[in-house]
């Protein structure tokens, strides 16, 4: 099973629809473990859709469907016997708009993933919460007010709280859908720094509409256009020596 150790995510012939409209066409990708992969492309190209297919959140949209092979650490998550919620336990997701649970405190927000799935209780749970908050570089800022409402945090802090919440279930893969696009530049910088730290322990896949961000933090980059993967490779190579003309047009800013 050496192949599984070299491959965190393997996508083969993935197609996805919203109702009758096809959004993804025959996607094939292989993502290495403990790396950061950036999905870039213009609006509507399908990069968020494919991200949501990786933890089966896509099918939560009414009348949406997907078909194909998606293997996470060797397990086909679209197999009939697999329940979507079991998959999502092992894959963390951070959304574009920070979405802390509004009626819960900071501590409860981070703990809820572990509580719902019965992963830890009592002291072990508290350790888990602290560990996740430290990993999200938020512990020092909130350790004195763990029981105040999550909505009292700033935007950047809320997003780091959402990252801590995603990490609390100890996933292998972290999916991030434009996590910094709603944040100010300083918070964005902190989140990018955080991602560089996180990739030592997790496989991170980040959707971004900001090419410079992809160039800064991505080890590999995939360029999407109209539901197809146009090019996929090492970030520096993709930006400096793009193989396809569409890629070149996009990275040089001819269209965005």
């Amino acid at each position, binding site marked *: 099973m050496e192949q599984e150790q070299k491959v965190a995510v393997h996508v083969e012939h993935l197609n996805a629809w919203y109702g009758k409209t096809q959004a993804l066409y025959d996607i094939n990708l292989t993502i290495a473990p403990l790396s950061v992969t950036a999905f870039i492309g213009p609006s509507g190209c399908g990069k968020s859709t494919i991200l949501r297919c990786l933890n089966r959140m896509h099918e939560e949209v009414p009348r949406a469907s997907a078909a194909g092979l998606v293997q996470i650490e060797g397990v086909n998550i679209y197999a009939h016997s697999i329940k979507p919620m079991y998959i999502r336990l092992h894959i963390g997701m951070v959304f574009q708009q920070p979405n802390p649970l*509004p009626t*819960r405190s900071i501590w409860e927000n981070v703990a809820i993933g572990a509580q*719902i799935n019965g992963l830890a209780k009592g002291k072990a749970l508290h350790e888990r919460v602290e560990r996740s908050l430290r990993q999200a570089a938020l512990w020092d800022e909130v350790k004195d007010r763990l029981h105040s409402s999550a909505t009292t945090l700033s935007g950047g802090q809320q997003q780091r709280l959402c990252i801590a919440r995603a990490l609390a279930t100890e996933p292998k893969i972290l999916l991030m859908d434009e996590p910094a696009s709603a944040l100010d530049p300083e918070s964005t910088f902190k989140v990018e720094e955080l991602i560089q730290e996180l990739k030592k322990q997790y496989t991170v896949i980040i959707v971004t509409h900001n090419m410079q961000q992809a160039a800064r933090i991505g080890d590999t980059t995939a360029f999407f256009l109209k539901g197809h993967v146009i090019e996929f490779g090492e970030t520096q190579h993709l930006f400096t020596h793009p193989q396809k003309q569409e890629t070149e047009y996009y990275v040089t800013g001819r269209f965005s």
Partner: protein
Amino acid sequence: MSAVSQVYQSHPFHPPLSILTVRRRISNILAIVLTTIFILFTVGILLYLISYVLVQGLHFINLDFFTQVPTPDGAPGGGMGQSVQGTLILVGLATLMGVPLGLFTGIYLSEFGQGHFAASIRFLVDILTGIPTIIFGLFVWGLIVVPNHSFSGFAGGMALGIIMVPIVTRTTEDILRLVPRETREASLALGATESQTILRVVIPSALNGIITGIILAMARVAGETAPLIMTAFGTTYWNADITQPTDALPLGIYNFSHSPYQEQVNQAYAGAFILIMLIFLTSFAVRWATKGFEQTNR
């Protein structure tokens, strides 16, 4: 250079008083005046109503009102204690019977209500909110009162409970729909099942509004008279037995208001005042109690 730009060139911050600006100013003032008049009218009616009842009834509110039952045949004294007791019993009964059904229907319609079946349910619920409440009384009369040969508090509570169901369903569904998709997605992305998401995330976020809806439905049925006429029927004795006829404030007011004895008419006014106060206090209590659950949406 066009005429317009010429004009604006020479008057950069004070455009001339053309017909258009005059018309806009007039319609602006007209709108403000009209809305103010209507607001004063509406508030005025409300204030007049309350002050009329207050003036007539406040006088006659005393301890006896709550602790005594009506005296026989116009003897002095007495009160409407059994009406107050009955209202509390009937509204409590109605809440127990109507709220669970309304709550779960509202949750179903909001969380699982995309298909034709749900659309039909929603349609029926909407119809129910418009049915005159005396019909519910008639329904319970035929179902419970006639076979048992007895008016009862239970029948009254049931009639009021049925009235509460569509109200609670509507408010619950509307409030749950307001919980943003992002909050639900956050829960699902953590590996929660649908029911865990609903129970632990969606409903707590909407609890504020749900409780408001329930309490407002309670205040609403506290004032219903017609459905109680043929179910609870009313009484002039203390009664805590729900298998027996039970009184209620609206019924008591109705009966006393055309009594030949002035004292009882006065007590009817007092009862009306108490009823209005009850509803006022309920609204304030709701606002006060749910302040802690505010959610801030960015």
